[in-house]
């Protein structure tokens, strides 16, 4: 009974959120949701689609043609050239895309290398597919960077893919072009797929003065297009976590196979959300700029507050996303530390062990929440750690 799921676990992030609901006065900096509502221009696009009566039926399995055409157009602005008819699938958020990709590209028993700490649900999807996650530690001392020799050491005959998140959740690290090309060389040498989850790609480089300077993606390298599957979600950039819509793209050879699984899993992404995604791509640029400015302020606020708690935490300032991942100086047991914070002062954070073995001894703090919430959480911690 339940053999396939016996090694799966409910995400620790969700466990913490569930636990937090027991405390009415809780202040949560746990789950990775932004404080903003979906922008008005996106809602109006959806309202228009609803009024026209075009959302009640399935779309084609890979998604609405007009949305995929828009996606191709937006990808081309970032030097990624993919055919909307054969190389792009609209997904029900990125996690569905990840699941479809791993189920399509791997066989049970395959191994997938994951730089860690990284997003907690990757492990579960890999296990669900009957594969083995192989964690490769990032180097905290050098700012959570890749160490390519460690990948080389861990590659076996069963290794099928390297799966990374860029910018990385929970560390907020952006992997630079040189590091990524190094990873690509390894993939070429050992004939591996590269699965690149880029859901935070619009929330980057808070040290710069303006937003919208795209990060480098291996999906830009044409000779790698048959190896790279790149995923994006509208959740983070456009404050659309509840809409569950994203997309993936790769060479048509891979997409043809991934589409079969996508069709089995969801038939198509929710059509109403596909119209929301169209609104985002057509009119959402200004909102991304607005969010970026807000996250930059909040990142600085969270770091400033962490500086005051320097007896309890040390941290690397994140370049992107809306997470900071401080090391706990007082204990290495991140679960107990997080539960303690929750029980004693009703502040919810995510224990670092959720993100892989190398995440132990840290906590993830979400600065995507509003300033008032961030300040209230830190006020309580100031008092508690006094």
């Amino acid at each position, binding site marked *: 009974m339940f053999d396939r799921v016996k090694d799966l676990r409910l995400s620790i992030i969700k466990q913490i959120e569930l636990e937090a609901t027991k405390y009415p006065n809780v202040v949560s900096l746990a789950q990775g949701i932004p404080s903003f509502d979906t922008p*008005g*221009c996106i809602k*109006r696009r959806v309202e228009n689609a609803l009024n*026209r*009566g*075009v959302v009640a039926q399935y779309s084609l399995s890979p998604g609405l*043609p*007009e949305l995929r*055409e828009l996606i*191709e*157009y937006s990808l*081309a602005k970032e030097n990624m*050239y*993919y*055919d*909307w*008819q*054969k*190389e792009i699938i609209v997904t029900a958020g990125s996690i569905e895309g990840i699941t479809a990709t791993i189920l399509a590209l791997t066989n049970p028993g395959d191994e997938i290398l994951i730089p860690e700490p990284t997003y907690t649900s990757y492990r579960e999807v890999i296990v669900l597919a009957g594969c083995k996650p192989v964690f490769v530690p990032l180097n905290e001392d050098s700012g959570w960077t890749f160490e390519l020799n460690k990948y080389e050491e861990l590659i076996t005959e069963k290794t099928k893919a390297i799966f990374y998140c860029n910018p990385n959740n929970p560390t907020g690290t952006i992997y630079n072009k040189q590091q990524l090309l190094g990873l690509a060389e390894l993939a070429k040498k050992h004939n591996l797929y590269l699965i690149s989850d880029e859901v935070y790609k619009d929330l980057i480089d808070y040290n710069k003065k303006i937003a919208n300077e795209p990060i480098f993606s291996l999906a830009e390298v*044409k*000779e790698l*297009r048959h190896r790279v599957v790149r995923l994006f979600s509208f959740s983070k950039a456009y404050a659309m976590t509840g809409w569950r819509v994203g997309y993936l793209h790769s060479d048509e050879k891979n997409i043809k196979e991934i589409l079969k699984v996508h069709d089995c899993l969801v038939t198509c992404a929710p059509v109403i959300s596909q119209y929301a995604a169209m609104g985002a791509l*057509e*009119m959402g640029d200004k909102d991304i700029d607005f969010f970026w400015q807000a996250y930059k302020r909040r990142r600085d606020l969270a770091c400033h507050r962490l500086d005051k708690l320097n007896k309890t935490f040390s941290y690397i300032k994140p370049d992107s996303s809306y997470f900071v991942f401080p090391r706990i100086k007082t204990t290495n047991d991140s679960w107990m530390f997080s539960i303690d914070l929750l029980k004693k002062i009703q502040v919810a954070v995510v224990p670092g062990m959720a993100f892989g073995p190398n995440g132990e001894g840290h906590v993830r703090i979400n600065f995507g929440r509003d300033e008032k919430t961030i300040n209230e959480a830190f006020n309580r911690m100031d008092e508690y750690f006094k």
Partner: protein
Amino acid sequence: MKIFLKTILKYYLKFLTKIILAIHSPLVIAIAGSTNKTFVKDEIKQSLAKRNFNVRSNPKSFNTEIGLPLAILNLPSGYNSYNLWVKIIFRSFLAIFSKNFPKILVLELGISDPGDMKFLLTIIQPKIVIITDITQRYREAFNDMDELIGEYEYLLNRTSSGGLILLNKDNTAIKNLKYKSKAELIFFGINTKIKEVGECWQADEIIKTPNGQKFNLIKPTSQKTRTINRFGHHHIYSNLISEIINHKIDKFIN
């Protein structure tokens, strides 16, 4: 109230745009169809710009009753902001006095409701008309496909005898269009191998390469190998259309 203001805005922008078009008389290239309008527009614009023509096209997909005038006037949308629209209305008036109005307008025409094409053609009179394809997309507001196809037939019938029509030979709905325009007609297609339809520019021997696509471009009197850095047949169509426009443009400009 909102609908009332939108209607006023729609007719104000139309009126102003007609004045400006009457003053400057640019060559209007109209691109209609269910898909691929934006890629075709960009390809034509880029190729004409390389030849130093002063070209303006729709930003994003400003191609409807309000978007099209904004594209011609080179103005942004105010979206849902009354303040922004007030500024745009003021700026639109100043556009009458613009000295550097482009010689060529490359415009997408978007239709989603019956009568849309008729309204758009009360603003512009295209000399060159391209129909990329006709599919079920945007059909929901029409009673049937015939009614949707009627929009495109209206466009073709309004193209004057000195004009040029480019049609996709591979699209079944386009093949069956009924119209009476005496404008010059050129077809484009992929592996069509049809000779009797008149002038047809074709692509065949398409090969996908790691860097894009390679194909044989067959013109009426010659052929050559082309490579493009994009993937998908729609880019081959865009390239064919752009080649035809470049071949014919001097006749319309001089």
